[in-house]
């Protein structure tokens, strides 16, 4: 079996030009292969570059060196050098992302936010609505909130809307940045169920999980990040 995604010799350093051009090495010689149906967990202390690596896999951060290859049938697309519109096309139906915090179009209702990725892929309004409602119910987002914009929701409620959106489509690749961080144990358990079901259908998942018990339930293997001290050295 061949991987669905390969990160090869990834390097990235932030240069903070307006703070004396301080250099922050964040990813050094990262190599990662991700296969369908498995969940790889990025493991490392806070500040070790887990989110930066995940964001790079989504094209949200630009790596300095290396390749980020996404399987496209018989071919590979390199995210590190792809055009903006190629990345947008990939995000539409190939790579799903649940960010650490909900950042969406303001003023859209929770239901619309979850439906949006489905509508963009030509799924009918009624089907999209049904799926969105199932997901929001599964994640215990109270029905009275569905028609409201999440700006005023609690952190946990916002995060559950975010998760519902991320699982609305059966993306072949799913990137999850601490999806359970602001959730209680029961809701975290509901998210674990979604992750296990996604693996079952063959999704390749890369995740960051704060809670050891969540990690133990979903992880097939760990990818160890370098220690921040090593990076700086």
């Amino acid at each position, binding site marked *: 079996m*061949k991987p669905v995604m390969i990160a090869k010799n990834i390097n990235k350093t932030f240069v*903070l*030009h307006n703070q004396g051009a301080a250099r922050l090495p964040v990813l050094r010689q990262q190599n990662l292969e991700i296969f369908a149906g498995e969940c790889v967990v990025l493991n490392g202390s806070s500040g070790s570059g887990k989110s930066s690596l995940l964001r790079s896999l989504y094209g949200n951060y*630009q790596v300095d060196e290396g390749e980020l290859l996404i399987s496209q049938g*018989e071919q590979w*697309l*390199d995210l590190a050098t792809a055009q903006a519109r190629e990345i*947008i096309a990939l995000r539409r139906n190939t790579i799903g992302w649940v960010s650490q915090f909900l950042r969406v179009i303001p*003023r859209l209702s929770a239901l619309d936010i979850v439906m949006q990725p489905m509508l963009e892929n030509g799924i009918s309004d009624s089907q999209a609505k049904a799926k969105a409602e199932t997901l929001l119910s599964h994640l215990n987002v109270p029905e009275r909130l569905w028609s409201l914009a999440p700006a005023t929701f609690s952190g946990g409620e916002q995060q559950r809307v975010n998760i519902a959106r991320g699982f609305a489509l059966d993306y072949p690749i799913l990137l999850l940045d601490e999806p359970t961080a602001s959730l209680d144990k029961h809701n975290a358990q509901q998210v674990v169920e979604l992750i296990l079901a996604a693996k079952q259908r063959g999704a390749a998942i890369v995740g960051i999980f704060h809670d050891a018990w969540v990690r133990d339930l979903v992880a097939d293997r760990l990818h160890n990040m370098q220690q921040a001290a090593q990076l700086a050295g």
Partner: protein
Amino acid sequence: MTQLAKQLEEPRANAANQAEPALLQAQNLSMLYAPGKGFEDVNLSLYPGEVLAIVGESGSGKTTLLKTLSGRLAPQTGSISFQSDSNTAELYKISEAERRSLIRQHFGIVHQHPLDGLRPRVSAGGNIGERLMENGWRNYAEIRLQALTWLKAVEIDQSRIDDMPLTFSGGMQQRLQIARNLVTHPRLVFMDEPTGGLDVSVQARLLDLIRNLVTELQLAVVIVTHDLAVARLLAHRIMVMKQGQVVESGLTDRVLDDPSHPYTQLLVSSVLQQ
């Protein structure tokens, strides 16, 4: 990683449709009124349905560049080609008359100040209908029906069809200007700070409207704004300008979340965290 080398032998894919040609392509474009005033050596391609935001501080050359891209200001050097159906037109090689006709048929141009893009002494319906007549519509009833449809689409009460734009609020004028530009279904729309002079609450509503229309009509848009939040909301791609130079460009969220140029970092860090 032993299989890696073999896997990499395979050809690289292009996720977006490679056969699809760019709608607008600019090469080595320059237009300087004085050193640093205008724009220099701009290259860009815009594809159907793509929204590109040009951002940068006041005086960086955004409006000048937009004028040149939309056929209203000849560049000193470089070329722009526009692809319509199967024809390619070099925007500044064709005659003035041909360029005007191309703009009329295929471009929408939304000015920062709505009254620059409206006829103040022609009714709202007339402002919309005029664009249809320019494109060969003759049937009065049909034109009026289109005007009503478009007033509704931009959330202007249809009973205002015979009123003059001068009696409208700034937000309504801007929505009317948008209707006037979209009624002919252009492929490409240029907007210069369309929410610039409006109150914040009016801005939000106008932005939602623009976002909906752009997605529904699959418009390609070049929008000039100094507001990064507007760019984040509407644009697929961003081009950052400083003193006439494009200093950074790319996917909107990449440029805003991981800015690499000192000037982009400064711009991003001066915005309050949302």
